[in-house]
């Protein structure tokens, strides 16, 4: 995304930014940036009906600049299209204020965004990230097993499942493995042809400058290597030049299943991290793995869930020296303004006050999906805490019980310290 122009006041955060999306990924950024109540200005085509004095109506399509107050955004992951619905905010000769319009944001067509609540730190961070001009890693991945294959496109911020292939492969049977062998051949050929169609390999002669994206094959057992053998054989047999050119870019990794969620494993395997170490998704995957490992240790230093994490932050456990806040960007897209503000405040607090690390995960990646399962927010603490998940009522009850047993002031102190409560 290109930042054409911006006028954002640092202090209040008010202002606007004019952006030019250049690649499909930018639509994802726009989707994350645009909030309800924001003002969006973009070129639109609108059918306008006119009633003449004689009473006859004529309608025509007019291209015009429209500013709308956003009520709803709709993002299609597959095609990377973003539709922004809202009500017209500035009147012009064709459109009255308050009329509804849906803007279709398109590539290479600029739009201007003005934040209703002002540009907060998260929004500014997203804007910065969106306009980061450095070349982003992209790769194709095929997670496959016997009879199923998931063809995915992995970009910096998204994992897009492009095609799922399911072909019934008969299993090996006593006295004859013909069915199995034939089935696997059919499966491989379907997968390869689908993959090539999806990848749309650049024709070497016409556009040599275009870079070939790497391809990752991941599977349990030997399916991936068998598929690679098949691709090699097929490339030689058909002397398909683009395919031959692709061969050196193919990497094989191990995954425990053919389901797409095991892409995580493939991405965190050493073979892959070596090649793609500094990409957002591999960082995110590694972080989630770290979190899961700490959860398994169950030493009270890893917590998940909104309430628990907020409590942990309140206690200052997500701070300098290893405190990490993992948060899904889905939370910042909350329809409710108050909800968003709550998370922005938490992020600001961890980053600015506590000095901890904040990682905003993209929920379009598998790691983000895992975080989503954990309630969209998790934290790695600097020191162990217990009982963060107690109900408010149960928590109070515990205090009450303890207090009723207390006879000496010293005991009170001990009990309170047990509960991690400080007397305010």
């Amino acid at each position: 995304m290109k930042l054409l122009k911006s006028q954002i006041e640092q202090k209040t955060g008010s202002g606007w930014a004019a952006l030019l999306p250049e690649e499909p990924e930018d639509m994802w950024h726009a989707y994350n940036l645009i909030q309800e109540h924001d003002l969006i200005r973009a070129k639109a085509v609108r059918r306008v009906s006119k009633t003449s004095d004689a009473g006859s109506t004529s309608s025509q399509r007019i291209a015009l600049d429209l500013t709308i107050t956003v009520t709803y955004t709709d993002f299609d992951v597959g095609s990377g299209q973003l539709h922004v619905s809202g009500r017209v905010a500035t009147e012009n000769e064709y459109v009255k204020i308050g009329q509804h319009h849906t803007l279709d944001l398109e590539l290479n067509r600029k739009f201007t965004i003005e934040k209703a609540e002002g540009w907060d730190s998260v929004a500014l961070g997203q804007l910065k990230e969106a306009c980061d001009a450095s070349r982003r890693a992209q790769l194709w991945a095929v997670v496959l097993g016997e009879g199923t294959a998931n063809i995915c496109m992995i970009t910096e911020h998204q994992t897009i499942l492009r095609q799922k292939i399911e072909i019934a492969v008969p299993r090996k049977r006593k006295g004859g493995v013909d069915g199995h062998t034939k089935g696997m051949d059919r499966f491989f050929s379907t997968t390869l042809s689908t993959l090539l169609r999806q990848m749309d390999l650049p024709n070497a002669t016409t556009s040599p400058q275009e870079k070939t994206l790497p391809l990752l094959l991941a599977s349990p057992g030997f399916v991936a290597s068998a598929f690679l053998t098949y691709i090699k054989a097929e490339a030689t047999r058909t002397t398909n030049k683009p395919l031959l050119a692709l061969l050196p870019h193919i990497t094989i990794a191990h995954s425990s299943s053919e389901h797409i969620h095991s892409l995580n494993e493939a991405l965190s395997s050493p073979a892959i991290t070596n090649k793609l170490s500094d990409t957002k998704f591999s960082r995110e995957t590694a972080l989630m793995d770290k979190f899961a490992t700490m959860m398994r240790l169950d030493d009270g230093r890893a917590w998940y869930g909104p309430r628990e994490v907020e409590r942990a932050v309140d206690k200052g456990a997500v701070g300098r020296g290893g405190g990490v806040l993992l948060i899904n960007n889905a939370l910042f897209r909350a329809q409710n303004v108050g909800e968003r503000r709550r998370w922005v405040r938490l992020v600001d607090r961890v980053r600015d006050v506590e000095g901890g690390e904040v990682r905003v995960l993209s929920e379009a990646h598998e790691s983000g999906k895992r975080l989503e399962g954990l309630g969209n927010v998790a934290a790695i603490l600097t020191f162990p805490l217990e009982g963060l998940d107690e109900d408010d009522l149960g928590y109070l009850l515990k205090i009450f019980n303890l207090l009723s047993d207390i006879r000496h002031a010293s005991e009170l102190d001990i009990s309170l310290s047990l509960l991690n409560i400080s007397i305010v």
Partner: protein
Amino acid sequence: MPPKSGFSRARNVDYDDDDVYDDEDYYDEGGQNAEAEDAMTADDKEQMRIGTIRVREALGNMSDSTSDQKIQEALWHYYYDVSKSVSYLKNKLGTEVKKEKTKPISRFDQAASVADQNAPTTTGMSTHVHVSHVKEPARPAAHRLPLRSISIPTNAAATDFFWDVPWGNVPFNRRGIITVDAPHYKGALLGGSSKLAALAAKRRKEREDAEAAAPKVDSDADSAIAMLDKLSVRTKENNNPSRQSRYLVRRRSPSPVLEAPKEPETEEPEVPQPAVVIESPAQRASASLFASTLCGTDAAAKQPPLQLPDLSMPLAAHQSYNTMDAFSGPSPDDIKRKSKLANGDLAESVEKLAVADEPRTKSKNLNVVDVFEKSGMKRMANFVVLGHVDHGKSTLMGRLLYDLKVIDQRSIDKLRKEAELIGKSSFALAWVMDETSEERSRGVTVDIATNYIETEKSRFTILDAPGHKDFIPNMISGASQADFPVLVIDASTNSFESGLKGQTKEHILIARSMGMQHIIVAVNKMDTVAWSKARFDDIVKRMTTFLTEASFLEKRITFIPLAGLTGENVAKKIENSAGHWYSGETLLEALERIELPQRNVRKALRLSVADVFKGDMRCPLSISGRIDAGTLQVGDVVLALPANETATIKSIEVQDAPVDWAVAGQIPTLHLTDIDPVHLRQGDIVCAPKEPVKLVKAFTSKLLAFEPVLPMPVEVFRSTLNSPGSIRTLSARLNKFTGEVVKKKPRIVKPGEVARVVVQLERELPIEEGMRVVLRERGRTVGAGLMENVA
């Protein structure tokens, strides 16, 4: 059964020597029937009376052609179920018209009883019921067995004898006349019988000459009729045993063309239907002429002129008259059409006639549970072979097959040669099970291999599971089909220890969580540790601790030292002198002894599809899988879920042998028709359409954790099903023994703890309460549980 029993009306005045004896049979059967009826209670009789009236109402116009006795017989067999009796009778009437086959019992029954009433003199009639149907001049009563008429005529019986025949549905006045006449003929026929015989013989000769070529032309149709005939045998209550056996033999043969030459005698009488209909007036003419000859010569009949005008009627008028009356009941076509609507069986059998090369399936309507219990089948057991990779599972099973002569020496030699070629001679036995090129070149079992062995007492299905951790999904699908596991452990140093950390442990946990109670632990490769008792005892001790922790009862664990490669203590006793300290059972003996779990034969059908494949040209779609509950038989309609499509079972194979039914616990191969292959895949459930499994998107499960469990994406395994899903919430941590809630919404479930979790599936799948699920994540089995309810 006389081949000419189905003789058409073209032969209605024929006499056949063979038939005398059959009469006897019929009479006997009739007698039995009569006895049965005599034994009826007053209550029964009242029910019978009401039932008869109802059936008559239901039959409508067909009721004219049905005797009370027949109705009552039907009612008796169907326990006074009116609707069933009606459909049976309709069916029978229809088939009788078509196949021209007698339903001997009832008719003879009637004949006998009527004779008893009308002519007391005939009560002494013993072996020969001499129903001279020659006396039926006006009727094309052709379907009757040609009977000897040299004997005492029981003319009184004759009319009653035929009055229920569909085409005998002549107008009442005509019927009445003959009945009245009957006594008069009596003496006369007795006297004139020799003349009659001579006349008949002459006539027969004439007709045979005339029709010499005719049946051959219709041979195709004949065989078709023969098949129809054959099919309808099933519906009959009293099957002639010889017919039955012939039928069974023929059912197996694929081509009906082959059958035709087998019984050339039957061909002749079984003239195709339309031809018979057309011929009937002519026959009537000849028959009545014959009869009139009798009447004219021997008796001063009251109404011979009445019959003569019949003859002199113009043929066209005669025919229409005849068809209107005698065929006022359903015509063969009508019946065909009607039964197609009313009765699928008949419709199917008719279709079968049409396309002789692809027989449609027809249910035998067996009570499979009863048949199974009576069959006294050998003990049937399925076991899965588990263990860490390279502990010798496949080799051990290859050895077992070899020792039991399932695999011959030649095949083994061939395999050994091939194995030596790539320098893996020790894999020869394993290659019996590992058949794919991938498995052979890598020396690792990838998928379940199925094989069968049979001993004197039992028939086993061997499921050889892969040991490699990547193929645990396959192992789970294999284990779900087994009754008990055989755990193979490598006794050699380090191997055992590494296995215990690896898949030995995981396999045990999975097997246990699948509900298996017994386990055989085969301590393999004892030859590599020189049959050391100390090593064996050490392994036994450590495995016992481990298995009891996995909640196997100690008494249900069997340890057997053996060597798979050399075959010692597999089927044969140990020969090595170092192993003489062991005097217990061999692996095979242990397999035969082990107790099998209860089969849920009486529950609704549940079959988990383990494989979908193309059998051969005749069976374009076949599935295999274990029947978890219930029974099935050829011709059953089953429902495949989650596709929610029905299919018909064309044939069943159990252990590669065709059978008519299968019960819970077996792993049959079903050949299906009427379903598209896209609707079936591994992991589907095949169930009875009336009691389907619900499709579930999310469910709560009581889960025993093997690894730390938190909300996360998992793979859900249910029997052969493997689906992506996720643990949505951890609802509560439970007390392991009482099941009480210890903590609501725990943050994490630690290994060994029991929790209630909500599992979300990617799409709707058939999962039922009480089904066992295994959850895996990142190649580790995180827990196993029981489906509790729909979330």
